[in-house]
């Protein structure tokens, strides 16, 4: 259930993002989802890819500081208030979201939200209990 996400430290200089993405492409790795959190000085690029190990190796070989994080990918029900319902479940269970980002799945055209929790095991249990569908990691890598 848990998805392995790659995080990369970036300086906030022009061209840094493009250069990292080029390295990933050159390694023959496909990006499934991407998010960039940035401040005035630096940014953190978060990637979900089809081949995590290959991607990490390529980035490290190019001298980047990289870490792996476990995240959960949740399919958002296709009706108004779908995401709000999920957030209600989480706050009801007292779970902290460190960050989240969304993308649209090409095959199903459904919205998928990636969550990073302080305690991903507890989040997994709470979401399952509420009957919310969590995408298996394999599905996310091959979206």
């Amino acid at each position, binding site marked *: 259930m848990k998805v392995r996400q790659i995080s990369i*430290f970036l300086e906030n200089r022009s061209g*840094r993002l493009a250069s990292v993405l080029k390295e990933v492409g050159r390694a023959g790795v496909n990006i499934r989802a991407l998010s960039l959190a*940035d*401040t005035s*000085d*630096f940014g953190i690029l978060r990637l979900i890819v089809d081949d995590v190990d290959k991607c990490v190796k390529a980035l490290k070989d190019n*001298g980047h500081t990289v870490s792996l*994080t476990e995240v959960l990918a949740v399919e958002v029900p296709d009706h108004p208030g779908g995401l709000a319902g999920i957030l209600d479940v989480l706050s009801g269970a007292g779970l902290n979201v460190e*960050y989240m980002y969304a993308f649209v799945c090409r095959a199903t055209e459904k919205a998928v939200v990636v969550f990073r929790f302080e305690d991903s095991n507890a989040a997994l249990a709470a979401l399952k209990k509420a009957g919310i569908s969590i995408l298996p990691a394999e599905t996310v890598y091959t979206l």
Partner: protein
Amino acid sequence: MFNPQAEAMPVAELRKLQGQRLRDLVERAYGHVPFYRARMQEKGVKPEDIRSIDDLARLPFITKADFRDQYPFGMFAVPHREIVRIHASSGTTGKPTVVGYTRNDIENWAECAARSLACGGATADDTVQVAYGYGLFTGGLGMHYGAEKLGAAALPMSAGNTEKQIMLMKDFGVTVLCCTPSYALQVAEVAAQMGVDLMKLPLKSGNFGAEPWTEAMRKHIEELLPLKALDIYGLSEVAGPGVANECLEQNGLHVFEDHFYPEIIDPATGDPLPDGQKGELVFTCLTKEGVPLIRYRTRDITMLMADGPCPCGRTGRRIKRLMGRTDDMLIIRGINVFPSQVEDVLVRIEGVHPQYLIIVDRQGNLDTMEIKVEVTESLFSDEVRKLEALRDKIHHQIKAMLNVSAKITLVEPKTIERTLGKAKRVQDLRKLT
């Protein structure tokens, strides 16, 4: 203690003795060395102005450059027939600094080297392996004479030929080792290759110096060799090894103050600093005849410790392990900053040695300091607020340590320029012309 009367002399008595000796020293220097006379006249000080040790600060400083300008014998205060030995320090730039010793100078130096050995518990019963270089460098002969003065058996190995050093160390039952700390580690490494278990040897103490080293290195040496690793300080302009040495407390180096008077000054202004404050170490050699030395700036950064008397009973003040050289010092908004302090903060935060670069600039009339820190995996977090917290923590600790506010910038690995594998630590962009 080798000489309890001198080493544990009550402080008031010691200051009185220092005052008497300073008066004699100034008279000798003024009377016999034209360089000193000219310098004192420039400053408007006469020998009779110096009555006690408290008058020392009225005298001018001398530097290594002054020494070099007097090459070869301009600093000598006695006729050549009274000189019995000449040493010279390696000059990385140009001429070396030359020091001549009278018979009394050699005697006093040997006495202080003997005290240094006795700091580790050495006595006439010991065998002292001297693995400092013998030659113009003072390390080898200094410790050799100290060992003989102590009545111990001196084993004059000089540096190098490590396998033979280890063979004799084992076969002769050596108990005291004198060498650089890095050589002690090399001895341990080679011994392991030879299959010699150093931990079974009767070694008990080591006087290690002549290069900067750390507490971590001390711990490492003491794990590999069955001895107390003690820091020894000396420099050829002052005498040689044996100016100061740690006692078994391993908490600062006792200066043998009846011969060498230490001061700590602000390297920028030359003002004397109180005990407990960090600055440049300055020595006056109270008893030196061949080459009198008054207020010699060593360029070494340390402090005189202010934590009360040492339990060992010695009354000579202690200097801390050397913290750096004035050559590395930056003055930012009038505050002295050493790259080593920045490094200390970074190491304490993460326990690793991150790469960093200090960039000093001037905006308007104000100096600015920026510290770039490469984000390694141990520092990196996937969350923005944790990285911001790291940045703020570095900022606060730098501010607390240096009293200077620095902009901290987290940068990608390998972006700080390295020359010959070593990272450049400082970039000073100020144009102070």
